[in-house]
Structures are given as structure tokens and as C-alpha cells.
């Protein structure tokens, strides 16, 4: 794993390595979001997941999210790593780490980052269920962007 704040990786994510990127002497709080592969969704059983990314653009979008966070929470510092490839149940797909002098900003900026990630970062998930597989979003052909087109 590198030392860059924003990464798309093909290997398991080391949570501590992401956290350490945001440690600093004036942070009193670090929040981490760890997105993991869940087995059951609406009664349907997932066997494993497959993530694909447009890596160059994904990293640019992570940087845009960081810029938006800097405008809203100037003292917050953020690092994001997203994994691609095949992931098993309970494995980690994404880690978002935010440090801040005070905890409120650390929670808010972290939640903001995952919401924006789901809107503007070009990463796709293919669900492999017991009875078939599907790229998520695929079935929404008539309403292709559930939360509206990405703001950009």
C-alpha cells in the first residue's frame, strides 16, 4: 500500500494504514468508516461481490471530495482507500479516515465523504447471488441514477 491519501487497490485494505495517514498532533478525534460485504440484503443471499473502478477518475473524484470537505470543515484531514476485484463476505471494500481537532467535524465530514463517494466516484459493484449475478444499477435502466445525476 502506498502513502498517497487516495487509493484504489487490488489487495485487502489495512485499516490501520489508512488511519495513520490522517494522524496529526492537533487531532483530538479520528473517525473511520469501514464498508464491508454483507451477506443478506432484503432477504437475498450474496455469495461474493466484484468491484470494478475507473481508477484514474476515481482518484480525481476522491480529491474533489477532499476539496469539498476542506471548504466545509477546514481543519479536517481525510484519506480514502477503495478495493476492487472479488471480495468475500465481511471483507473490506472501502475505508474512509477523517481526523479533526473536534469530534463533531470528524463524524460529519466522514459521513459526507461516503455520501459523495456513492454519487460521484466511478466504482461499480457486481452482486453474485445464489441464483445469478448482476451489476448493481443495471436493473434501474429507466431511472439510471437513483439519487439524481451526480452533482459535479
Amino acid at each position, binding site marked *: 500500500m502506498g502513502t498517497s491519501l487516495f487509493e484504489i487497490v487490488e489487495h485487502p485494505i489495512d485499516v490501520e494504514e489508512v488511519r495513520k495517514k490522517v494522524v496529526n498532533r492537533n487531532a483530538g478525534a479520528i473517525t473511520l468508516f469501514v464498508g464491508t460485504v454483507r451477506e443478506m440484503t432484503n432477504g437475498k443471499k450474496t455469495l461474493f461481490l466484484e468491484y470494478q473502478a475507473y481508477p484514474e*477518475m476515481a482518484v480525481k473524484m476522491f480529491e474533489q471530495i477532499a476539496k469539498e470537505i476542506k471548504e466545509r470543515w477546514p481543519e479536517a484531514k481525510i484519506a480514502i482507500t477503495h478495493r476492487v476485484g472479488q471480495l468475500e463476505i465481511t471483507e473490506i471494500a472501502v475505508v474512509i479516515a477523517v481526523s479533526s481537532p473536534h469530534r463533531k467535524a470528524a463524524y460529519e465530514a466522514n459521513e459526507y465523504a461516503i455520501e459523495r463517494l456513492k454519487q460521484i*466516484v466511478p466504482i461499480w459493484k457486481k452482486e453474485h447471488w445464489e441464483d445469478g449475478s448482476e451489476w448493481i444499477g443495471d436493473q434501474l435502466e429507466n431511472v439510471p441514477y437513483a439519487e439524481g445525476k451526480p452533482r*459535479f
Partner: protein
Amino acid sequence: MIKVLLFAHLQEAVGQSKVMVELEGCTVQDVKKWMEKEYPQLSLEQMMAAVNEEFVTDDAFVKDGDTLAFIPPISGG
């Protein structure tokens, strides 16, 4: 030449992740139409697009050497 990138179900529909398109002085909309003619299994009308890794609208111009990516609904995280 425009480099067109395909992801997720679009990539599977076409069977490749990259298509080189011989168009110039055109818009994203023009490339969508060209792609749908070439690959009738594709439906790109409502698909988001990015030129050189920035989101754009369908009326954006694409020039020789650009990379145009079609961005299906995002499901990362």
C-alpha cells in the same frame, strides 16, 4: 481518434473495455449514437459521460485524442 472506455454491464455487453472511435469535432451525443449503431445491444441515452476524467453533459465536444468514458450508475462504497 477518440478512446471510449466502458465499464460494468456496458463492458460486458460489448465484450471489451475500450473502443477506438474514428470521429472528430463531435459531441458526446454523437458518440453515443455512433456506439448504439455499432453495438445495438447498448442503450446509452441516459448514461453519464466523462471526458478526460471529468463529468460532462451530452453537448460537450470531444476531440481527437480525448478519452470518453461512459459511467453507469455508481455503486461503490
